[in-house]
């Protein structure tokens, strides 16, 4: 008997679920129609676009302005998708309408249901009405695309499909979150206006408050903090539907690209972490809603706010956002604060009048507002006094970092694209966290460090080559921590060595060589990743040059040879020791990728093809002429020799108390280059670290100042052959800009002798 009763009472959940669905069938129909006009239409348009694309490809005379045909339909489809997503909060309002409509509360509460059954049945039936049409639309779209692929070559689309599917998952989770947050917001309210207002307020204020708090931290002279990093953090992206939307677009426009390019893609792990955090947050909103639902009383209906604390929470968040935005706008802080208080005050009292339905006990409203304003200023003050709540001092422990990426503005350290690698190598992570700690320590304990003080005529003390770096950590806790600093380039030595000797860089560089080669072949097809090159079994064209990017020779390789070269180069980098990197000579370059003398496997593949690189010769330095003073002396304007680097900076500018971590200014010392008289002055600059020669940009920087008459003699040619783009924490005896390459002359007796010989002759 008891079992029967229990089963009967349990079945009420299902009954409530079904009656709810039936009661709201109009919403289901509307949502279904919107969904059917969304994704399936987009799928049809995609097939049409691909079909026309193929026609155009096969017949150059065939022309249809695709966008004119498709764009109106795209607008309709996207519009309906947006409306159907926004239906989330309408559905929530309909399913829990008895919480804010007095006339129907008795009907719902008197039914033989427990609060738990009623809540979950209502929640799930609403969710079904919201999501079932989406799933139907997805299945229908998949069917349309499958049918379409029978008639149209859609191989390119199917390559992207898994990533689109993942992006779709983000949308689904975001939709569930929107619906759940809407339900959560309704729990606080007992009237229609407040229910609608709360949904809008909560959805807006969660991301807005997080952003404003973060910006307050990162702009309160907080060393190394990066404002925009909040947009990569699950704290922002996984806590609200707006954040989910930001993440979706990030994934769509950046993540998919990275995945397709085969670059070590941190979006995949970011996506998993995002999913976990977003699902936890949604579950949290659901659980809190349930607790509030159980706690609220039926008689609360018609009260504007069932939980008054919620009203004050919304108000405080709004006041905080407005005041912090005005203060951080850069206008005078006092006038910004006063303007903020006035604006907030007007809004506050309007909301109080609405919430109180008049002026009942209105004397408490100014007190509440004053308390809120004081608390906001208190938070701002604490943020200022504690230097962003101590956040700038926080450096993630290496053990808590899952992966790290590092970007150095100056491409003489790394090529730009190294920033896209998300290193999981523990040594790289340790080197980067150690660099980070060093930078933080130098800032917060500036006086504990001493820097070389070499006072010379008309010069500042403490001259250093410095670099602006950006570090992005993905932690094992799912957070993304972004920092930026200016550091002296010698501080990067360990990072450069560990990065360039890591397996991940080895793969990145080997892939890069193979992809460049495949794209340089005459097939005309573009390959974005090594996996697509390998999958397509395509060969490529390898171009080999000397370290000046000169004396190019190229050879076509079949797919097997290209794969062999790829594997050989990868193996060589993997086998490379930091010493080999530091002291090795450049044998040749594959585009931007250097090959050291120690790269046995690569050199073996080249030898099999009879490929070799000659020494730098006079003919490599073209466009020369005879000296204007002495017609027997051959000179060139393509070379610049700097004995004392002209660009430098002072540690106090980026490590000092009021320094900016993003400092990137260089002092320019116009009088120190290109003359034998300056041979001794290079020592004023501390160690330089550089591992790449940026062939595309160095000419741009130095071109204007190039000397017109550098003598081209045997000593210069020998110096060029000895010079290297790789210098790690060394003081070069000279820097040579030749063509578009930057090469460093190591401080050896031979090089010094050659320099003298170059300037003064034998």
């Amino acid at each position, binding site marked *: 008997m008891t079992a029967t009763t229990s089963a009967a009472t349990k079945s009420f959940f299902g009954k409530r679920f079904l009656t709810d669905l039936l009661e709201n069938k109009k919403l289901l129909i509307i949502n279904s129609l919107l969904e059917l006009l969304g994704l399936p239409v987009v799928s049809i348009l995609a097939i049409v676009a691909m079909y026309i694309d193929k026609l155009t490809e096969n017949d150059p005379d065939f022309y249809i302005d695709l966008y004119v045909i498709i764009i109106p339909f795209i607008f309709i489809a996207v519009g309906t998708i947006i409306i159907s997503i926004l239906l989330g909060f309408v559905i929530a309002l309909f399913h829990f309408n008895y919480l804010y409509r007095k006339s129907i*509360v*008795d009907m719902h509460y*008197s039914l033989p249901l427990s609060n738990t059954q009623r809540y979950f049945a209502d929640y799930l039936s609403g969710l079904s009405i919201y999501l079932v049409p989406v799933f139907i639309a997805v299945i229908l779209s998949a069917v349309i695309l499958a049918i379409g692929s029978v008639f149209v070559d859609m191989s390119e689309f199917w390559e992207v499909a898994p990533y689109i599917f993942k992006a779709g998952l983000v949308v689904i989770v975001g939709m569930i979150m929107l619906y759940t947050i809407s339900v959560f917001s309704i729990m606080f309210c007992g009237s229609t206006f407040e229910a609608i207002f709360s949904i809008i307020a909560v959805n807006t204020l969660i991301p807005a408050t997080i952003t404003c708090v973060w910006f307050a931290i990162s702009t309160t002279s907080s060393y190394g903090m990066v404002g925009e990093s909040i947009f990569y953090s699950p704290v922002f992206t996984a806590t609200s539907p707006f954040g989910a939307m930001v993440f979706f677009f990030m994934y769509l426009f950046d993540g998919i690209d990275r995945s397709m390019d085969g670059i070590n893609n941190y979006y995949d792990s970011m996506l998993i972490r995002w999913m976990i955090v977003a699902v936890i947050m949604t579950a949290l909103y659901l659980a809190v809603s349930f607790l509030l639902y159980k706690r609220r009383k*039926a008689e609360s209906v018609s009260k504007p706010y069932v939980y008054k604390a919620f009203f004050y929470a919304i108000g405080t968040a709004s006041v905080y956002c407005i005041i912090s935005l005005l203060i951080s706008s850069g206008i005078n802080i006092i006038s910004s604060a006063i303007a903020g208080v006035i604006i907030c005050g007007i809004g506050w009292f309007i909301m109080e009048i609405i919430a109180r339905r008049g002026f009942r006990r209105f004397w408490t409203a100014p007190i509440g507002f004053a308390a809120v304003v004081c608390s906001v200023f208190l938070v701002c003050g604490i943020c200022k006094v504690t230097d962003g709540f101590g956040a700038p001092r926080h450096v993630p422990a290496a053990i808590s970092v899952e992966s790290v990426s590092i970007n150095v503005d100056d491409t003489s350290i790394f090529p730009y694209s190294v920033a896209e690698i998300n290193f999981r190598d523990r040594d790289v992570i340790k080197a980067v966290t150690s660099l980070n700690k060093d930078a933080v320590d130098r800032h917060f304990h500036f006086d504990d460090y001493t820097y070389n003080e070499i006072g010379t005529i008309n010069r500042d003390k403490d001259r250093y080559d410095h670099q602006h770096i950006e570090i992005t950590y993905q932690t094992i806790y799912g957070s993304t921590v972004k920092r930026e600093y200016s550091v002296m380039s010698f501080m990067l030595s360990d990072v450069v060595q560990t990065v360039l000797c890591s397996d991940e860089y080895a793969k990145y560089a080997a892939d890069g060589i193979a992809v460049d080669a495949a794209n340089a072949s005459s097939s005309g097809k573009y390959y974005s990743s090594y996996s697509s090159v390998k999958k397509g079994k395509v060969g490529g064209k390898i171009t080999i040059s000397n370290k000046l990017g000169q004396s190019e020779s190229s050879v076509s390789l079949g797919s097997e040879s290209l794969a062999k070269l790829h594997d050989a180069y990868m193996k060589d980098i993997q086998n490379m020791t930091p010493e080999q990197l530091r002291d090795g000579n450049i044998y040749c370059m594959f585009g931007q990728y250097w090959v050291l003398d120690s790269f046995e496997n690569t050199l073996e593949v080249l030898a099999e093809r009879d490929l070799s690189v000659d020494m730098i010769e006079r003919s490599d330095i073209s466009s020369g002429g005879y000296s204007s003073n002495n017609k027997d002396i051959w000179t060139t304007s393509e070379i610049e020799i700097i004995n004392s680097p002209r660009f430098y900076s002072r540690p106090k500018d980026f490590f000092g108390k009021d320094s900016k971590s993003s400092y990137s200014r260089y002092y320019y010392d116009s009088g120190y280059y290109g003359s034998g008289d300056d041979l001794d002055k290079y020592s004023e600059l501390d160690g330089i670290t550089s591992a790449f020669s940026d062939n595309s940009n160095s000419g741009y920087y130095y071109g204007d100042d190039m000397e017109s008459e550098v003598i081209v003699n045997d000593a210069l040619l020998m110096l060029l052959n000895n010079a290297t783009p790789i210098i790690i924490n060394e003081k070069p005896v000279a820097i040579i800009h030749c063509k578009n390459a930057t090469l460093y002359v190591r401080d050896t007796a031979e090089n010094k002798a050659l320099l003298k010989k170059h300037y003064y002759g034998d």
Partner: protein
Amino acid sequence: MIELKNTVKKFDSYTALNGVDLKIEKGTAFGLLGSNGAGKSTILRLLSGIYKQESGEVLIDGQPVYDNIAAKQKVFFINDETVQFGSFTLKGLKNYYKTYYPNFSEELFESLRKRINLPLNKKINTFSKGMKRQAIVIIALACRTDYLLLDEAFDGLDPTMRIIVKKMLVDAMLDRQLTTIISSHNLKEINEVCDTAALLHNGKIVFSREIDSLKGEVHKIQAVFPQNADGSPADFTQEDFASTGLKILHFERSQSIYYIIAKGDEDTVRAAFAPKEPLLLEMIPLTLEEIFIYELEVLGYDSNDISGN
């Protein structure tokens, strides 16, 4: 059986029920009487599991009601609103409630519907107020619950329909021992339908008794007493009668005629008056409405006082 034990219900700082004790036996037709804001609807909402009491107990057949599906399944509550059903058709509303009440009888529903001739497939918001009320009453009866709670049940019904609906209720009470609790300001109807009634005032029970015994306990007395020796009319005060142990609800004198409302059975009243040798002693039974008025008058709920006269 329905029991309220020392039940307290508050709405913020306002105490709607202040330690109410009430017992309603199964099969009773129970009338809830009371001034406006006395707590009648609050009791009904507590019994239907809508409200949760702050303290005390609200039990149906020994089980607490709030959040208890088994107890709530035994109760059907009809409140004084009808707008909530507007979006349904009668058929839709029937199907809606049928889902939750397993004892729902289609046959009973059909027979009741035919008696009052309500359309099945028209939206209820096109119905008149009386028709809406009829619609929910026949659904409630078809749900065949043990307890039926009606708040202002006959509001909006025309006299003919009132009779029909009352008959429906009485039939259900006779057929299956339905316990009906009716809250109404219309005391005549309570008088007609209910066998027991409770009077509520300021969140407290003033009395709870069978209506017949209640009527036998309160009397309107007209009495004339012999003149004094000096020829002046007899001069008795309320206290003179109260001192005999009678509870005087109302006392009025016009010339030599005394109009008194007093509590107590007939013999007690007569015994109390006997020492004063009345020339005339007439005892008239009170209507429920009069009992309501005089009981509340004692508690300070006097129309003259309230209107300021």
